């Protein structure tokens, strides 16, 4: 896979993951053009298209488009299911995920993606294993979060 983009129906990028080295400007240009291309397509059209020298696979979930640019020899159908599995992972983690979850917890969306795909290839396709890794990390975080809130409470009391 060359890159993955999540964007809204209004064309706002919500997540971008690049697996090939490109300059920031180039990324912005590619992103902008591809988003426009896909938003210009009608519903019920094929989920695959040739775009420049790339194969593009995309699917819309509610207000969000998930879009992957893949290599010539990559499998389109399995890429569609890569997208679906990622949606399932987000859904399981956030609980009925919606676009807002991804906006406000963008870092989590990136972490989950890194557990699932690395370097553009599937690293772990088991839903359980990916979620276990993320939950473990969260447990490490929650301990910390409580102590911070305690501190700020004390601060309020003191003042």
């Amino acid at each position, binding site marked *: 896979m060359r890159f993955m983009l999540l964007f809204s129906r209004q064309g706002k*990028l919500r997540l971008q993951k690049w697996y090939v*080295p*490109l*300059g*920031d*400007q180039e990324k912005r240009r590619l992103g902008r053009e591809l988003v426009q291309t896909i938003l210009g*397509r*009608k519903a019920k*059209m*094929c*989920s*695959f*298209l040739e775009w420049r020298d790339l194969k593009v696979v995309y699917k819309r*979930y*509610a207000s*969000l488009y998930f879009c992957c640019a893949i290599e*010539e*020899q990559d*499998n*389109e*159908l*399995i890429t*569609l*299911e*890569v997208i*679906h*599995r990622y949606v*399932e992972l987000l*859904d*399981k983690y*956030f*609980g*009925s*995920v*919606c676009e*807002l*979850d991804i*906006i*406000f*917890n*963008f*870092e*989590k969306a990136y*972490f989950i993606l890194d557990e699932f795909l*690395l*370097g553009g*290839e*599937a*690293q772990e*396709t*088991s*839903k359980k*294993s990916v979620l276990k890794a993320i939950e*473990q*990390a969260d447990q*490490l*975080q929650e301990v*910390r*979060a409580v102590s*911070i809130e305690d501190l700020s409470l004390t601060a309020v009391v003191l003042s």
Partner: protein
Amino acid sequence: LFSGAARRVGASRRKRRNPAKMPAVSKGDGMRGLAVFISDIRNCKSKEAEIKRINKELANIRSKFKGDKALDGYSKKKYVCKLLFIFLLGHDIDFGHMEAVNLLSSNKYTEKQIGYLFISVLVNSNSELIRLINNAIKNDLSSRNPTFMCLALHCIANVGSREMAEAFAGEIPRILVAGDTMDSVKQSAALCLLRLYKASPDLVLMGEWTSRVVHLLNDQHMGVVTAAISLITCLSQKNPDEFKTCVSLAVSRLSRIVSSASTDLQDYTYYFVPAPWLSCKLLRLLQCYPPPEDGAVKGRLVECLETILNKAQEPPKSKKVQHSNAKNAILFEAISLIIHYDSEPNLLVRACNQLGQFLQHRETNLRYLALESMCTLASSEFSHEAVKTHIETVINALKTERDVSVRQRAADLLYAMCDRSNAKQIVAEMLSYLETADYSIREEMVLKVAILAEKYAVDYSWYVDTILNLIRIAGDYVSEEVWYRVIQIVINRDDVQGYAAKTVFEALQAPACHENMVKVGGYILGEFGNLIAGDPRSSPLVQFNLLHSKFHLCSVPTRALLLSAYIKFINLFPETKATIQEVLRSDSQIRNSDVELQQRAVEYLKLSSIASTDVLATVLEEMPPFPERESSILAKLKKKKGPGVVPVSELEDGKREGGELNGGGDRGPDSSTPSPSADLLGLRSAAPVSAAAPSAGSLLVDVFSESGAGGPAAAVNDDGFLRFVCKNNGVLFENQLLQIGIKSEYRQNLGRMYLFYGNKTSVQFASFSTTVSYPGELQSHILTPLPPVEPLVEGGAQVQQVLNIECITDFSEAPQLNIKFRYGGALQNITLKLPVTINKFFQPTEMAATDFFQRWKQLSQPQQEAQKIFKANHGMDTEVLKAKLLGLGTALLENVDPNPENYVCAGVVQTKSQQVGVLLRLEPNAQAQMYRLTLRSSKDTVSKRLCDLLAEQF
């Protein structure tokens, strides 16, 4: 909410989110400040408000980072995360890298994680930081804490830079194969290594590890196999011999998966399909190798493939699209492998039948993939006939599919399944489709029709008709290669010449015929008009008048071609001599502002008056047959489509029996003959008194010498601008009416630019005026007073204007030149960017390596540097690069950079108010076809502007 299956997955559970809290802060340690900030940004009503809010936040963060009070880890993490959010919104971030790097060495997982994410997204090749980052990664890799190790590996995989490959490519294989490495770490290590290998293959040496890596295919843990196989596939493609033991391992793994029940693999079963990802990857790996030699292995594999084909016929275990997608993903990958082997007729035909079913499936995605996959099947001798049976369905798809990308696939498949038996039908369908085809695919369709018509022509009159139809229907999309080719073929086959002359003569009767038709018509009548001259309806004079009636509507190259046709007429039909000489003698020819036309008119006129009939007949003899060679159209199609998409190679290597129009032995291929198209028309060689004598247009020749007269007109303005960054003279603009050439010279902070406006028409330009405008504040940075110009420009004449330029301070915008004039009543208005760029005021500075690096270090503040990494657009030839860098105006310093591949330059930009020293470094990476360009100067705006300009030059 996300719809479909995903929503149902979560719908039954209560939301864990507390609605009273900040929206959507759900898990882990929600960073409250971050959520507030994101909320604020979302509430911004305008782009300006957003930018204002962001700037406020940036100022706040900057002061926090710069403040005396040491920040705790949580705050640092929060601010770094905000910066990351701002960057992802599309804004530039120029600080915070150091704080992110600090987070890497935090022993709190959460802080480390954010630090790594920031580095992954915003990697900066600042060498000092890279060293620190690599140190932190090194610590985490040796920490033996699997979560820390994974984070570090993810970061390497996300960045994938050469520096990281240098630091870790030796260590990671060790981690990958070590017996005590945790599974999750192995998975990350495998894909991390893959990314490094793709970026820097020379640094990743598997050597002693090869066999242990291959044996990961046997690993107990499915996740490890899934990750490792991507690495193994990539390595196998590059070193198939070293990895060939993977074939039998892959077959047995595949066999175990294919024969397992749908629940055997537990969490690796996806919607009742066992391990679809791994299955696809295994089938993909096998495509790196020929069929297994070992009979047992091969038997087992064929069994797997048959099972997969059988499963496609079984009723689905679930109605969900995920089930059928996963199942069919494996099926298509299996079919790819069957096609790759191309040795099992039984499997090939079964695959073809399966795809045939998909051609009429209600899922558009499946129809698309079936059409695509059948294209490759069509090129196998075993399945070609089976594919052909679907011709009606495919033609129907071309006509009725609602999605252009599907129609495109259908057109590709028709092209691939075409042979002698169905060529007439397919070509006719493609031609009729062309009339309504989407603009995006017309050019390619034209090429395909042209190739098929040539390839499978039984009689040449059909071929000629087809190409003329192409020009009629889609003239704009008929490239040079196509009409050159029809001429080549007509010249080489004398049985079709009379027919061709008759047909083009008829086609030219149309009142609005395409210019390409005029070209073909002019050429063919010039050569073979005599074959139809017996008929009074197409007598020589009628032919000439017909051609000449199109002359004034045509572009310069076509007119040039017509002039050559005229002189040939004088030879073929002496009775037309007086008429044609009259035309050549007219002012619009003999004084034409275009040097090529003028030269032809003068020379042809002279030739026709002084040469004897014999000399004339010898000079203007019929063109000799063209040497046979690969059709240049085919080359063009290949170039356009890239390898693999259309199986042109199959058509071209003559795998199927005979029938090639030009492949016959009668003329014999002659590969030593230098290539073709340039001289196809014999334009240069047909001009008998060629280039040596300077013609009356020599003034124009001098000024425009860099442009090569008669080339296609360049109408676009910005392009013109960018072409002049590294050169000072040439044609800035050209359209049908007007040509603008410039010559410029610069000294210190002063410059002078000569502008030449050439009227290319035979009609006067009235109210001709030019003005220069300065966008933004540019006027205070440079001065370019423009003297007035004569308001009348006669047809064919040229006027000149001198622009004096003074650079006051450095600048980024370019002044704009506006030209207005009336041509035959219509007001013409053209605006161009004048190529006055900051680099024009460069004074080269020679210096030795020690000086250079000393100054380089002095200019190390972040705002003094501008850097870009970009793809090579123009090839990476050393001499061309050097010429461009010299053209830039700096001194190209030899033997300064320790890496001889790199280029370094130095110069001083001279402005009236100050001098700005500039250092430049260009690092090509031939393998990746990329450059890294770094500019350092004492002024940030200069670095940035030069960097922007130069990044477009290489």
